[in-house]
């Protein structure tokens, strides 16, 4: 912890790049030491962390509350799946398309959203989250209920025979998440990123200082949508197919919950958020196997734990756990 009064030196981009590469390298080493199950779970952690990043960016930094993040993830997922499955493009291009198409979609949506505030935006995005996945049933090219496959193919031969599919998933998702988060962190610490915080904290003052609040909100929506789209693409890569049922409304709510639990105003907690989302069903399972219980009990326990966490987070650390630590020192 830094001492009070000491001037805080901002982390430079180069230093941050070094930290990200170091972290990625540590992940690679770790990936070699653990089994397939852990790798698979790790891929989900990276994917969820990315989705939570999109919420932190939109809600924490630009003050727009969206309940439709799962819909934007679905847009990205379908865009990626179509690029790979129908157009036959390289999986990496497919994932880039996930981010791009969702970003453009978010740009259009953001033009509407910038006019709306608070509950109106929440309502619109909520309606989007329930309606968009069912739209997929309307168009045969999107594969209706069964969906379409999202196959990134086996790991390249040069990595050797015992390089498992799960390790390949982990590499892709961790790398994609790291690159994207690096980009977002740099954006937010830049001069442009500071205007986000200005608008969030006081839109009127920001406007008076010459910031175009409307355009900024639209941009934030578009970038956040792109990030959500990439995480949607990664998510369906992990379950190797995209269908309307992969993006229920509850996904939006879980992600928002995880974002609140680990801190809406800082990107530092996003990995923790991903871990929470992956770990809770596991914890609930082990709890149930220890104390025993009916099938109904097993089904509702994860929901109970998540909800209790949400409420505790709002009551005790409304600005994130990091904020609480800062206050105590």
């Amino acid at each position, binding site marked *: 912890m830094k001492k009070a009064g000491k001037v805080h030196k901002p982390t430079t981009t180069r230093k941050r790049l070094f930290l990200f590469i170091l972290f990625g390298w540590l992940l690679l080493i770790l990936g070699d030491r653990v089994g397939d199950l852990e790798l698979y779970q790790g891929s989900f952690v990276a994917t969820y962390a990315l989705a939570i990043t999109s919420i932190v960016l939109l809600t924490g930094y630009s003050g727009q509350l969206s309940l439709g993040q799962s819909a934007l993830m679905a847009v990205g997922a379908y865009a990626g799946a179509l690029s790979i499955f129908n157009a036959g493009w390289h999986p990496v291009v497919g994932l880039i398309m996930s981010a791009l198409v969702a970003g453009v979609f978010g740009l259009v949506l953001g033009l509407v959203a910038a*006019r709306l505030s608070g509950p*109106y935006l929440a309502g619109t995005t909520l309606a989007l989250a329930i309606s968009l996945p069912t739209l997929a049933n309307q168009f045969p090219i999107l594969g209706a209920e069964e969906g379409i496959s999202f196959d990134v193919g086996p790991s390249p031969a040069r990595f050797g025979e015992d390089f498992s599919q799960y390790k390949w998933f982990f590499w892709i998702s961790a790398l994609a998440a790291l690159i994207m988060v690096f980009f977002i962190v740099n954006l937010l610490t830049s001069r442009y990123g500071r205007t986000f915080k200005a608008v969030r904290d006081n839109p009127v003052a920001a406007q008076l200082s010459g910031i175009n609040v409307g355009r900024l909100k639209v941009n934030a929506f578009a970038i956040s949508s792109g990030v959500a789209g990439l995480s949607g693409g990664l998510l369906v890569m992990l379950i190797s197919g995209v269908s309307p049922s992969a993006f229920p409304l509850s996904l939006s709510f879980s992600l928002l919950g995880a974002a609140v639990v680990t801190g809406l105003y800082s990107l530092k907690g996003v990995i923790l958020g991903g871990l929470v989302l992956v770990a809770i069903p596991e914890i609930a399972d082990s709890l149930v196997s220890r104390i025993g219980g009916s099938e109904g009990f097993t089904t509702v326990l994860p929901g109970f734990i998540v909800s209790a966490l949400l409420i505790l987070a709002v009551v005790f650390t409304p600005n994130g756990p990091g904020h609480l630590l800062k206050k105590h020192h």
Partner: protein
Amino acid sequence: MTQFITAVLTSLSSGAIYALMAIAIVLVWRSTRVINFAQAGQAVLTTYIGYTVIQRTGSFWVALVVAVVSGAVIGAVIDRFFMRPIFKRVKSGPIVMIAPVVATLGLLGIIQAVIGFVWGITNQSIEAPVSTGGYKVMGTVIAFSNYNLLVLVFVAVAMLLLTLLFQKTNIGLALRASAYSPEIAKLSGIKVDSVRTLGWAIAGASGGLAGMLYIPGYFLYPNAMDLLLVLGFIAAVIGGLESLFGAVAGAMILGFAIIFSTTYISPKLFFPTAFIVLILVLLVKPAGLFAPKKSRGA
């Protein structure tokens, strides 16, 4: 022709149910500036209480009264012992906007989990108190029954009672005053906090009624009212979130749009229609159809 008549009547009865939920949302929004997602949980909980009463007494009507009363009590308890302490703790910063949403979402999860613990997660059903067989019009049976008529009548009576309460009584005046300007209401000697709790109670009763009228057509399970909550919320937003009339109008617009598009175009258009109607309304009027002129700063 019969298809058209069926569509109109079904739209009315669907719209009526959405209206009850929309009113519950609007009442809470007006009194505390909270979108109460827990309403789905509260309504389904009261319906489970009603279900238990039916199991014990065999009477739908007793169950209906118990459900509405317990809805009011649960609403008041949630505001007094859950929302008010949270508002006391979370006062500043952008989290103020998000905290109530997250808190009510968390509460929704807790209520649904508790229902799962107590009643289990399997589907239950509630027998409708009157015939659900469709009427015969020009020789063909249409999808509108005594039960749908009953729903319409109940909702109409509830609207009437609420309108009388709000327009003709002192309590109604206090409710409107605290919603319009809490500070001035407080200065005029209105106990704003208690009035807010009363708003939550009326909303809870409205949700309880919605549950008991909605569930007999479907099944009862912990998440049974989620869809209705979303539709009620959309209807409330269409209506502008501030007026009860707006909520009913929004619900009817939504009911007609959904039923007509699913009848005449494709049954898969249920949700997309809701979204399209909402976005069209908000593009023209960003604060809903019947929002007051004065901006209220959500």
